């Protein structure tokens, strides 16, 4: 039975992201899919709401893509917002696993030029992760389905009927 090394896929994404943050001097970065689900992140502190950042960035990406189409463009390559001390760079790219979005926050340690430069390298690195092409699970579906009811009972027993 062929088993792809899924651990390597996660490690490879995380490794490329770590390298990107180090090389570009960014403060933090998160790699998400179009639905806003987090694939890898680097530099996030506890006080930051990672899921919130991911969903908002996916929303921005989706709306800018829709806006691009309205204006006769296929897509906008990236978005850039400058605040007083922090700057935000949101860029999407295509992979065999679908469109991914990189959200980067940086300050005056870095610059938009540097971030864009290392973003290109990051994209090439991620595209080379061969496991993206056909990640397959190694889990017993029957066990999962058997445990589902009990798992949901544990969560809902105190909440239902309230």
């Amino acid at each position: 039975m062929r088993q792809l090394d899924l651990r390597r896929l996660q490690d490879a994404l995380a490794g490329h992201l770590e390298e990107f943050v180090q090389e570009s001097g960014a403060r933090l970065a998160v790699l998400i899919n179009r639905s806003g689900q987090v694939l890898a992140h680097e530099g996030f502190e506890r006080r930051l709401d990672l899921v919130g950042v991911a969903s908002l960035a996916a929303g921005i990406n989706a709306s800018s893509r829709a806006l691009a189409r309205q204006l006769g463009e296929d897509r906008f390559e990236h978005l850039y917002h400058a605040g007083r001390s922090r700057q935000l760079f949101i860029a999407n790219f295509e992979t065999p696993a679908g469109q991914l979005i990189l959200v980067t926050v940086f300050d005056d340690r870095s610059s938009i030029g540097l971030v864009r430069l290392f973003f290109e390298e990051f994209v090439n690195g991620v595209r080379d992760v061969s496991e993206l092409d056909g990640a397959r699970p190694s889990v017993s579906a029957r066990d999962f389905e058997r445990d589902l009811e009990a798992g949901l009972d544990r969560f809902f027993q105190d909440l239902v009927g309230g």
Partner: protein
Amino acid sequence: MTLVNYSTREITCKIVYYGPGRSGKTTNLQYIYSRVPWDRKGEMVSLATDMDRTLFFDLLPVDLGRISGFRTRLQLYTVPGQIYYNATRKLVLQGGDAVVFVADSQRSEIDENIESFRNLQENLIEHGIDVREIPLVIQYNKRDLPNVMSIEELEEVLNFREVPSHPASALLGQGVFDTLRTVSEGVLRRLARKLDASMEYQENRA
């Protein structure tokens, strides 16, 4: 798409609360947020107008705990219900794993319910999602108000696919968790079937 991370054993599912304007989608999420313990939920993100109408979406992350060793998380989204926000509604629906259709049970709102349900089907088709495949739960909300249609009447008009449905009064919390449980079970059972198919695929390749 349901995101399954096999190395960290995490599952993340996106559930979208759909329905006409003011049917109680955000109220569902607010009630869930108020009842779920702090260590089982994330921050609720709301992009609303000054009038408290949802402009883009609300998001509430909920942690169901471990199922078969997998830490299972739900991301609950609402869409803006008003007809003219269809562009943003479509964006939120993108990548959705399951849908809760929140209908307003009041007799005066039946046309809005039908229009929104039709709009849901159109938008799913546009995303290439088979409307017969995606887990769908209908919630008949606002049962506490006068002049509501009977459940039988509502079922006849909206539930021709005979999907699971629940009566609810989201403001009072009634039916909110029943709905969430049904849709969670639907989306996770579907995931289990996919895992099965995927394993067969591997075995056939062996």
